[in-house]
């Protein structure tokens, strides 16, 4: 049977992580469909129909779907599931929120955050903050899976021309409603998709000092990340957090500044190609996984690095 990918989108366009999920889906079956659930979401559906290797797009367009409330989305996924052996979504806060709700309704034990596909039943997933990788084999009839985007390459977002089929919403469950959102505005690349990430930790010391990190990031065309300590201290917004319980990144270059390298932080960036650590404590665990460690005071060397680039 075919594989259904639940797209992450903003109603008009597809979020890049969807393309990584499609790659994981194609390792299971060649027949991959994409589901767009939203409000006035033709733009996103058309973008999905252009994705390379997609054979069909399902579009569920209704007013009660504008804020992707799990209570309204899960029943749609459950109904669509009848025609699929596997249903996959990104392991983003969107996928993590809605997929287990659908899985429970289908009496299926979801497989979270996969990083490899062995066959249609068998997958690898990190456990214990990435200190171990479990290979698990599912005996459920339907597999509901969330996918770690950074573990799979993206398919091309063009070249396809698949048909778009409308499916019906299941209505408003009336359990929850949207009040407001405060999204961080930024011209920088998105953290999980950036080629370069510059992250700051508690060592940066204050929200004002974080400008040093941001200047360096802008010089490199990089995204800005942070440790939990930096977020908790209010230097940067919550969505900058990299780690076990934040975002997982795997850029070509990760620069950790004033970050000690706790297990939970490493879990979110150890897959980066090249890691640079700047820390004044030569015993800091971050140096254990850094390709290039520089033992120095960040207030001396970060401006120097920025000016010499």
């Amino acid at each position, binding site marked *: 049977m075919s594989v259904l990918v639940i797209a992450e989108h903003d109603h008009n366009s597809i979020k890049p992580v969807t393309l990584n999920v499609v790659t994981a889906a194609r390792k299971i079956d060649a027949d991959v469909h994409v589901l767009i659930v939203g409000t006035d979401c033709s733009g996103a559906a058309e973008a999905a129909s252009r994705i390379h290797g997609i054979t069909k797009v399902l579009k569920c367009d209704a007013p009660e779907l504008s804020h992707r409330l799990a209570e309204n989305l899960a029943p749609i996924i459950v109904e669509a599931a009848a025609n699929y052996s596997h249903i996959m979504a990104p392991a983003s806060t969107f996928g*993590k929120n809605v997929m287990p709700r659908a899985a429970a309704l289908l009496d299926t034990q979801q497989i979270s955050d996969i990083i490899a596909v062995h066959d249609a039943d068998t997958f690898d997933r990190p456990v214990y903050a990435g200190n171990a*990788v479990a290979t698990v084999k*599912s005996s459920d009839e339907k597999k509901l899976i969330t996918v770690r985007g950074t573990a799979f390459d993206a398919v091309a977002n063009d070249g396809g021309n698949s048909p778009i089929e409308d499916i019906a919403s299941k209505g408003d469950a009336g*359990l929850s*409603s949207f009040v407001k959102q405060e999204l961080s505005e930024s011209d920088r690349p998105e953290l999980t998709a950036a080629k370069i990430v510059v992250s700051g930790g508690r060592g940066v010391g204050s929200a004002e000092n974080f400008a040093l990190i941001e200047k360096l990031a802008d010089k490199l065309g990089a995204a800005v990340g942070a440790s939990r300590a930096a977020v908790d201290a209010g230097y940067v917004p919550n969505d900058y957090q990299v780690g076990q319980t934040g975002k997982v990144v795997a850029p070509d270059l990760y620069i950790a500044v004033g970050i000690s390298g706790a*297990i939970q932080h490493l879990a979110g960036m150890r897959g980066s190609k090249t890691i640079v650590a700047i820390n004044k404590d030569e015993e800091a665990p971050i*140096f254990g996984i850094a390709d*290039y460690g520089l033992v120095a005071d960040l207030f001396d060397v970060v401006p120097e690095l920025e000016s*010499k680039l």
Partner: protein
Amino acid sequence: MKVLVPVKRAIDYNVKVRVKSDESGVEQTNVKMSMNPFDEIAIEEATKLKEAGQVTEIVAVTIGPDKAQETIRTAMAIGADRGIHVQTDAPTDIGGVEPLAVAKTLKAIVEKENPDFIIMGKQSIDDDSNQTGQMLAALLGWAQGTFASELKIDGDKATVTREIDGGLETLELKMPAIITTDLRLNEPRYVKLPDIMKAKKKQLDTMTPDELGVDYTPRLEVVKVAEPAERVGGGKVADIDELIDKLKNEAKVI
């Protein structure tokens, strides 16, 4: 109002977990165990609501081996009034009973206890599943407010601020609802000795999965548990000039 708080015993977050050489699981002998940190945040939040007069009773529930009773006692030392231990010796190699089975167990307990809402962790730091709260909400047909960094209870409504990928989102939930905690919801209190002593006297009931009619046969077979791809680190540079040179000419990333 009565609140149910599921709490899980897990390897302490400070422990560097090691994979067993036969790849059957991770080393658990003589390893420090604690309450899953997100569950500590959940019990703290429930306790604060009780102190604010919004909650009258906090019931902590754990599913696990006999030792998991220690976790219930910790929850009681923070603020739980009563505890329920669902006893099982299911293997805990990658985190114990699977989220779907945990959710079914909790549903059976909800049917006995009739809580007004549930606060629980967003994620166990052993299996890193991030599923149980959402699954339980589905099984009960309740609203869900996941990854909460702020919670306000107002009669039959809960207002939840959620940590999402782009920033923050606020939802209003119809009660009864399930809230799952994120790191910034609160800072759990330090447990004092007199509270630990008092906790020993609180009521703790034990049940079995059979009594609750839940089957713990795993749906996911653990084929193996391996070390992650190794990373050779430890390289050092003397100064910024050397760093720039290496990044340009060796790593070729800038």
